[in-house]
């Protein structure tokens, strides 16, 4: 990025998270996470199971209420901590429209066809006219390669197809940021590629993305930057090559070693 060594102008930063804390009862799931994602940047988050990756994503779009810290997306800055309450429903809903999120289990609406799923956000949330939303939804389904499946109900889609519809559904809100939480983990191995293909295309188009994944090969190919989380903290971050090939933190080293061992591959 050309402006990389200039001080980040505020409109160059899409997400800024500062000293974020989250508790589940006694469990301290996020222990002061700070993170900045620039416009158009593709950030990957990796780390062992239970380290807080999903929690971090869910705090970014406030599906979870952080205990303390600041979450900022675009111009919206929301503080948490003593004296700061969760914004009201309307404000929260408005805030979330600028963030698209895709989940591990797709979570398509089962009573709606593929195209109705994609139209739902624009029509219900943004109040766009159905005809216009229909055109937009068609375009998006074409983009994720599912033009022929627009009238299928989710139960008649394969996992890979369902996940691509879910991506189209999130894109239909024309969000400024896309969050992906292990979106290929529930898929049969032969279906992973078609979903990663769509994500690759989005990254190429300059979409700002935060991606939680265990697909290390994909991360090394697509990531502008990778952060490694462990036990609710970011312990290392850098470019894909730095993090994956020259890990400094011992916990990251053992994570990657275990990973390559499990996958039967060695770091290239």
């Amino acid at each position, binding site marked *: 990025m050309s402006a990389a060594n200039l001080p980040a102008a505020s409109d160059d930063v899409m997400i800024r998270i500062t000293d974020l804390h989250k508790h589940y009862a006694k469990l301290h799931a996020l222990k002061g996470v700070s993170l900045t994602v620039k416009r158009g940047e593709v950030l990957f988050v990796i780390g062992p199971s239970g380290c807080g990756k999903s929690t971090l994503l*869910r705090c970014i*779009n406030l*599906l979870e209420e952080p205990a303390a810290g600041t979450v900022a997306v675009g111009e919206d800055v929301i503080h948490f901590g003593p004296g700061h309450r969760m914004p009201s*429903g*309307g404000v929260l*809903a*408005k*805030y*979330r*429209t600028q*963030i*698209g*999120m895709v*989940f591990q*289990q797709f*979570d*398509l*609406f*089962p*009573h709606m066809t593929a195209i109705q799923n994609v139209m*739902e*956000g624009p029509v*219900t*949330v943004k109040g766009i006219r159905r005809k216009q939303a229909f055109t937009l939804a068609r375009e998006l389904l074409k983009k994720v390669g599912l033009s022929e499946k627009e009238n299928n*109900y989710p*139960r008649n889609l394969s996992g890979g197809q369902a996940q691509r519809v*879910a991506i189209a*559904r*999130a894109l239909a*809100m024309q969000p400024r940021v896309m969050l992906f939480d292990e979106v290929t983990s529930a898929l049969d191995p032969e279906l992973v590629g078609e979903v990663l293909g769509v994500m690759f295309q989005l990254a190429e188009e300059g979409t700002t993305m935060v991606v939680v994944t265990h697909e290390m090969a994909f991360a090394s190919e697509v990531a502008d930057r990778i952060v490694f989380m462990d036990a609710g903290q970011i312990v290392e971050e850098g470019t894909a090559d730095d993090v994956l090939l020259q890990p400094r933190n011992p916990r990251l080293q053992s994570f990657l070693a275990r990973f390559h061992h499990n996958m039967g591959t060695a770091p290239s």
Partner: protein
Amino acid sequence: MDAIFGANICWLLSRGLHLLNDLAGGHGTYQADFCVVVKHFDALLRGAGITLLYAFGTIVGGLVLGVLCGTAMLSRHKFLTLPFNAYVQFFRCTPLLVQIVWFYYALPMLLGYSLPAWMASGLGLTLYMGAFCAEIFRGGIQSIDRGQWQAARALGMTYLQLMRRVILPQAMRRMIPPFTNQSVLQLKNTSLLYVVAGHDLMYYAAQLTSQTFRPFEFYTTVAMMYFVMLYPATKFAKRLEARVDI
């Protein structure tokens, strides 16, 4: 009722019963005579009308009450859920018969004036149905996968939007079978009106029996009349279920 038609039915019924008695090798000496039922059939029909009216009224009333209470029970605020929970548990765990009798005989002691039978029993039936509907509604909403809520929220839907567009359409499909079950029970339960002399089908049967000393004929007929009302209703519910199945 047309006299010849009535006489024919009456003859047919009697023959049928004799035949049954013979087939079963019974030694009953009782001579059934359904002519008396035919003669008083309009009274029974009137009773059936009242029964249907009560069932319909208290089902609708209970449904409205149930949706309101169920919604309150879904709230995060203890001070809202607690009283509604108490109501639901109380009415689910006491016999309807006791409730109706209580509203008719006990409540007047508190109020200082008595409720007419139709109101006491209507109140009991509605509150009873309401308690079950609240539980059905709450359970239906809560049965929807967490992923659906978060996907709808992530799209930026407000609570009302996600309820209307995502949760309720799915939950309603799951509520239909328990709701129809409860409605069938409710129609049967209206027969309890009889204990406070509400003029339902069962009440007329009892009255006519004591006038004519023909319990066999009247109670057999009444059982069949309940069956004729409910069997098509259960069939209809099955069809409805199959249609909304996703």
